[in-house]
């Protein structure tokens, strides 16, 4: 007899977090025992501005279902202006992804300070929920990287 296995879709989420604010925010979420799904894999970057559009596309290519970038609030960047540049870049990139027909909502930018553990947790929960509703990333993935 064959048992029909019903697997729940567990999205793969990549979160780029800046070292100074958002990564510390994630830490705070942890030490405050605020939960967020284990589907979120955090990659620490020195500044949100370090994230090159290619990082995002490559994450998708290699199987991510959603990519989120977190940095200091505008005006609070450790390097003064890094996140301003990141903001413009990501706006244009997301708009381009929308233009080539990739579902809206697979990408997101959120500003999370070191004091906002609760915001980090809430954002991640919300984002994972959103990606779950969008389902698997088919349009941006590379077939060769699918298992």
């Amino acid at each position, binding site marked *: 007899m064959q048992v029909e296995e019903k697997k729940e879709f567990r999205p793969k989420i990549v979160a780029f977090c800046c070292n100074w604010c958002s990564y510390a925010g994630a830490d705070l979420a942890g030490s405050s025992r605020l939960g967020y799904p284990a589907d979120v894999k955090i990659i620490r970057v020195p500044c949100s501005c370090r994230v090159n*559009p*290619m990082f995002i*596309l*490559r994450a*998708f*290519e290699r199987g991510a279902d959603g990519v989120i970038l977190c940095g200091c609030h*505008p*005006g609070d960047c450790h390097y003064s*202006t890094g996140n*301003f*540049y990141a*903001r*413009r*870049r*990501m*706006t*244009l*990139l*997301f*708009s*381009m*992804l*929308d*233009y*080539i*027909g*990739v*579902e*809206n*909502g697979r*990408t*997101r*930018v959120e500003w999370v300070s070191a004091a906002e553990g609760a915001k980090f947790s809430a954002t991640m929960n919300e984002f994972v929920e959103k990606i779950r509703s969008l389902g698997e990333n088919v*349009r*941006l*993935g*590379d*077939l*060769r990287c699918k298992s």
Partner: protein
Amino acid sequence: MQELITRAKELLADGTAARVLGWRRGDLPYNPEPAFFEKEEDFDQFVYDGFCGANLSKMMIEASKLEGKTVVFLKPCDTYSFNQLLKEHRVDREKAYIIGVGCRGKLDVEKIRAQGIKGIQEIEGTELDGPEELTVKTIYGDQTVSYASAMLGRCHVCKGKEHRIYDEIIGESRETKDADRFDEVRAIEAMSPEERFAYFKKELSKCIRCNACRNVCPACSCRKCVFDSTKFDSAQKANVDSFEEKMFHVIRAFHVAGRCTDCGECSRVCPQGIPLHLFNRKFIKDIDELYGEYHAGEDAESKSPLTDYRFEDAEPGIVGERG
């Protein structure tokens, strides 16, 4: 054309310049190539007609490294590229003597072929002061087509016939603009995400990764391209559709966002006829809408939108909100 040759020879003779960058006559009516002219007799081969679409400004990067000045012929749209290269310190203004040449739109032989014309032997009426109609002589008989119908797509949405940087101007231009340059982008934006995805998939799956779009682009002047890097493990030379569709062309356009002057060379050279300008133009349209109207290459001083910011800039979430 004779005026250009005479002036170029003068500049060589009086020692102002060491060489001239222009176009050499091809062996078919439609294939002149960019070329350097150093000696008086070389000019027998000089040509400037409707098929001289190549943007010579990128060649000035190499010419700037040579001894002495180079006389370069730039069409109005090429001067934008030159300005942009100047802004990025890729060319040396002191090494260039710019002669702005008139333009009445550049021709695309594929547009002539698309009208069912085969076996082209001669094309008359391609010169700058020529008639509004081209006479195409073929081995299968003569035909006429209108100049406008044989023009490159980019000329229909011309930025204007004003030279942005020059030492002198020779030749009259004629207006060619008859469409809004963002119309094509708007038409795609109006589609559903599924339609857009299908559209780009169809177009980009033709890509053969020949890199002509990258190599011809005056804004693509990195000494080492990220797609040539041996450290970058992604497909590189392999023409894997999924890579081209989702990575290569988006990144190619992104790398020139805010610097692209919309010269249209990428679409002109694509052997598979992929409308690559649609990517660049989308970025330009977004920049205009979000950060204020900006023409890369209009001048050589202003800050590019991606190296600038405002505190009150839109958040990336605006993309979803706009719908």
